[in-house]
Each structure stands twice: as C-alpha cells, then as structure tokens.
C-alpha cells in the first residue's frame, strides 16, 4: 500500500481529516527546506506538499509567486527539490510527500525521468497545476507506472464529465480548489464548498482534499468536518517569508502547524 493510501486508511479509522501544509522548496532559504519538512511532520502535519518553483506560476497569488521568485533567485532546481525529498526520507519513511508545480520544468527534465527520480526519492504524489486530465493521459500513466500518484484538481466550475475523467485518471486523492481564484485569496461560502465536496467524495471513490483560501485554525476545523484532507499554503508561506533565519522558520512552522493540527483532531460529523 502506498504511503498516501496508508495515511488515508489510518485516518479513516479515526474518522478525521488529514492536515497537509504547503511550503515552497528553497524558501525561505536553501538550507531550510529539509528541517522545515521534519518540523511540519513532527508538529502534526499528516502529509507535506512541496512546491516546485516555476518562473510563471499563473494559478498562484502574490505570496506563493514571491516565494517561487525568491527560490529561483537562490538557484533552486528540480533536481535539488528531489534531493531534499530523498534527504527527508532518510529519517522519515511514513509521512507522504506531494510535489506541486507546473508542467514545463517537468517536461524540460523529461516526464519519464522525472517520474523515475521522484519515485526513487520517495515522492508519493504529484500535482501539476496546469495539466488537465485531458492533456495529461500520458503523464498520468508514466507517474503511475513508477508508483507515484497523479493528483488532479477539480473546481466549483467542473462539470460531471470532468469529474468522470478525473475519477478514471487520478489516484491518491483529488484536490478540490475551494474558490474561483488563485492561491491565497479569500473564500466565504464554506457551506457550499462542503456540500459539493460531500457529493464528490461519494462520486469519486477517492479521498478529496480541499485547498485554496484556508488560512487559520478556525477554518481548518470547519473544512475538516467535510473533507478527507485540508491544505494550508499561502498563510504558512507568508509567515515563513518573514523569518530571519532557518531556526526562526522552523519554530514558526512548528507553532503554526501545532495550532492547525489541533483543529483536525475532532472526528468528522460525516463519514
């Protein structure tokens, strides 16, 4: 069983949602990423989403855009990101790691090479923001062949046919974009989001994570009641950006994740 499947099975027993924090690889420094991943896992993250920086992150808001720019400015490359995952795996074999990024850097490496290296480094799933399931059949197959889950996005605007395609091609879980907008924007209509996610959990036969617009423990608690996982990105990236050194970043991450982890402990009201 894959790490992601094991994690969701275990949380199913406890009837609670997973907490998945997002950080941009190489931000706030090159040396911070691996210690931060450990800090996240130790303070209550159930899985970790690691952003692969891209020069043109069109689905991201200002916080993650700037984190990507800073990381690229420091010379972060895809091979370094994979190396950091490998290093993290030396002392952590259970926490799933999901890479999130855009298609072009992966294609530059070659999708087959990337899938192989990612699997070898201990990556469990990959989210490619600008790769829709229709365009991503070949890529999904390459990832799956290496035992890496291709994770697709669904949005409030996605119709029934698209849900079907994702069901067919995706694995690991499905990432539900909670709002019409970019990362870091505000969402207010949570009842509507949770209702839709409830339907999708029935239809998909895959766990559903909710991301975009989740910034604090209160929202995490609310969203956790109706989802299989909750992703927190921009709010954490913003806090880390202000840290003066790696030690401060690790401490900041621990405090924030500890607070959020408390919010997913309560068993879900719905199965």
């Amino acid at each position, binding site marked *: 069983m894959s790490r992601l499947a094991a994690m969701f099975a275990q949380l199913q027993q406890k009837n609670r949602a997973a907490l998945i924090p997002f950080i941009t690889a190489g931000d706030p420094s090159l040396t911070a990423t691996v210690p931060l991943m450990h800090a996240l896992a130790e303070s209550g993250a159930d899985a970790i989403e690691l952003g692969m920086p*891209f*020069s*043109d*992150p*069109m*689905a991201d*808001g*200002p916080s993650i*855009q*700037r984190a990507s*720019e800073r990381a*690229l400015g420091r010379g972060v*490359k*895809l091979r370094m990101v994979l190396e950091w995952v490998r290093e993290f795996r030396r002392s952590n074999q259970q926490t799933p790691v999901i890479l999130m990024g*855009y*298609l*072009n*850097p*992966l*294609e*530059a*490496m070659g999708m087959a090479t990337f899938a192989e290296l990612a699997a070898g480094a201990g990556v469990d799933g990959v989210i490619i*923001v*600008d*790769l*829709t399931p*229709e*365009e991503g059949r070949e890529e999904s197959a390459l990832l799956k062949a290496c035992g890496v889950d291709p994770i*697709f*996005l*669904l*949005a*409030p*605007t*996605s*119709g029934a046919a*698209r849900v079907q395609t994702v069901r067919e091609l995706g694995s690991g879980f499905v990432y539900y*974009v909670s709002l*019409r*907008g*970019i990362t870091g*924007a505000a969402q207010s209509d949570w009842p509507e989001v949770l209702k839709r996610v409830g339907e999708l959990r029935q239809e998909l036969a895959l766990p559903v994570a909710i991301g975009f617009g989740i910034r604090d423990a209160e929202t995490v608690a609310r969203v956790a009641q109706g989802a299989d996982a909750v992703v927190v990105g921009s709010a954490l990236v913003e806090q880390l950006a202000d840290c003066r050194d790696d030690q401060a970043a690790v401490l900041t991450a621990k405090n924030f994740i500890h607070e959020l982890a408390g919010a997913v402990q309560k068993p879900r009201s719905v199965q």
Partner: protein
Amino acid sequence: MDNYELPDAMGHYGPYGGRFVAETLIPALDELNQAYQEAQADPEFRAELHSELRQFVGRPNPLYHAERISRRLGGAQIYLKREDLNHTGAHKINNAVGQALLARRMGKKRVIAETGAGQHGVATATVATRYGMECLVYMGEEDIQRQSSNVFRMRLLGAQVAAVSSGTRTLKDALNEALRDWVTHVDNTFYVIGTVAGPHPYPAMVRDFHRVIGDEARAQCLELTGRLPDVCVACVGGGSNAIGLFYPFINDQSVRLIGVEAGGLGLGTGQHAAPLTTGRPGVLHGNRTYLMEDEDGQILPTHSISAGLDYPGVGPEHAYLKDIGRAEYVSATDQEALQAFHELCRTEGIIPALESSHALAHAFAIAPGMRSDQTIIVNLSGRGDKDIHTVAALEGIHL
C-alpha cells in the same frame, strides 16, 4: 497542402496548442468555445463584425505597391498590406472588435486584457468604450515606462491600467496576471487575449478574427498583379499579424510564408525574442509551443527593441507550420529593423512600427535576389508613431 483544417476539436495543431490551465478555467473556455462557434455560424454576427470593420476600423485597407523601394532594391516588387492605416494604428483592432462583439453577445460587462507595447491594450480600451464595457488592462511595469504614451491613451479612453510588478515585469507577466484576474472573475469577465497564444479556443479565434488581413491581401494581389504573391512576410512575436496574413495562403503551395522573429542584439547573445529559431517546445500560458527557456524549463527573459515582439513564446499554429515546413521562420536584429525603419520612412513616406520593421528588413534582404516580375507582400502591421521616442533616444534626441 490542400486541405489544411486545424486545430482539432481539442485545440491541437499536431503536438502543439491544447489547454494547459488551472481546472477552474476549463468550463469558461468551454463556454467561450461554444459561444464562438455559435457566433461564427450566425450570419447576423458576421454581418455586424463586417460592418464594424468597415465603419469603425476603416477596412479594407490598401495593398500598397512600394514602387520606389522596389526599384531601389532592384528585384521583386514589394507590396505593403497597410494594417497601419486601421483605427488605433495597428492590426490589433481586428481581433479586439471581434472579441468585444463576442463578449457583448455573451452578456459580459467587463473585459480585461494584457498588453506589451500597449497596442492591444489601446485596441481593447477603444472597443470597450465603443460597446460600453468596463475595461482593465494589465501591463508590466517595465513596459509602462517604455510605452508611457500608450498608457495615457488607454486612460484617455476610459480604461484602467494595472501595473504588474511580478517576474520580469513585461508582457508574459501581464498575461499571468490577466489569467489570475480571469480565474477570479470568470462569471462576469471576458478575457480579450491579444495574440494567437493562450489556451484553446484563443489561438484559433484570434486567427479567425485576423484572417481578414490575408483574405483582403490575396484578393487585392490577384486584382493588382493578376497572380498570387511569391512570398508573404510578417513579423512574429506572439504571431497574430503573421497568422492573419498567412492563413488564407496556407493551401497555396506556391506562396512562401516567412515569419520574422526579433533577433534583438543577435541570436548568439541570448538577448533576443526568437523562440521559433532558437527555442524548444514547452508549455506556457495555456498552450504547448516553442519557448525561450533555460535547461531547467524556467522561462527566460527576452529582449527586443520593439516591445510588441518581446515575448518568450509564440502561437502554437506557427510552431506547427514550422515543423511541417509550410512556413519558414527567420530573425532580424534590432539594428536591421532600425535600418529598415529609416529606409521606409525616407523612401515611401511611411513611418512603420518597429515590430513591422523586422518584416521589412527581411523583405528588403531577399528582394534583390528575386526577379522583378515576382511579388512580396509585407504585412505592415502597425504605424510607428508610438516608436518615435525609442528611435529618437537611440539618436541621443530627447523629445
């Protein structure tokens, strides 16, 4: 080639094109595609577009025989397709009118656009005012400084101009920001993309709105010379004016199609904007095409004397036409374009846009090697009034 019919239903031109965007936009693209197909099939829409192009844009514009320069070069006869005579001074208005009419048909009250040199921004601001829509134009901070007069024109026309400070602060970042806006306001907003790039159906739709350039040029050439041209030349940034000219000639095997990219300071310097001549296929801004990227797949900054060509990607149909060998792609440097700019000013009494000067440079280079009974059509895609500050500054003159 005698039966060219692309893109396919998924927006592919061979391996290029397609839709590479965040999931949230897919339904909006479906809605747009459907509305566009319906509009295209509706005689009323086509009649209105035709009437607007006549009455508001000033079409048809002439295919002008540049006799003095042809004589001077001593080879092929050079004809200029005078897109510079359109309202707002460039070909961009053809597409802006088309998309704005479509936006109105779809009931969208707000239009957004990205712009580099500002020509597409001005065209969009113009049609938004004409049809009573709210208009917001995204423009890189760098371009706002280079093209301050176009920024002022957009504001005069009632549009809001938003400065984009991310990335390289140029056209590609303005495009990212416009996509972010669209994803956020997808219900009431129509995104007027200014070139033949972006996710399907944009490359096909923008091409269709610009094909009037080639349709007119083809008929005018037959009328004036009694035969088809031997060569069509156009500059290529995103490639909208080039595809507009080329498209109606694709099935005419005898007509050579040549796209001229921005060679900047020279292809060897890396300071240019020539993805088709130097780049490789990748994915940016919603489509697969040739890109200027580094070995890690990060998009490279570009350089061109003309802001309108300063873009690291190119329309996917050009990528396809290059691969199948139907069109050829070459480049002209800043210097070569400038020389052609001055030559046209002094020989024909026409001040061309620096973008179009790249096409002129190549035409002037190949004409002497051709017979005097042969014909080259150059797309004079825009007028050069917007560029006089740039040219003056190079000569140490402050206007």
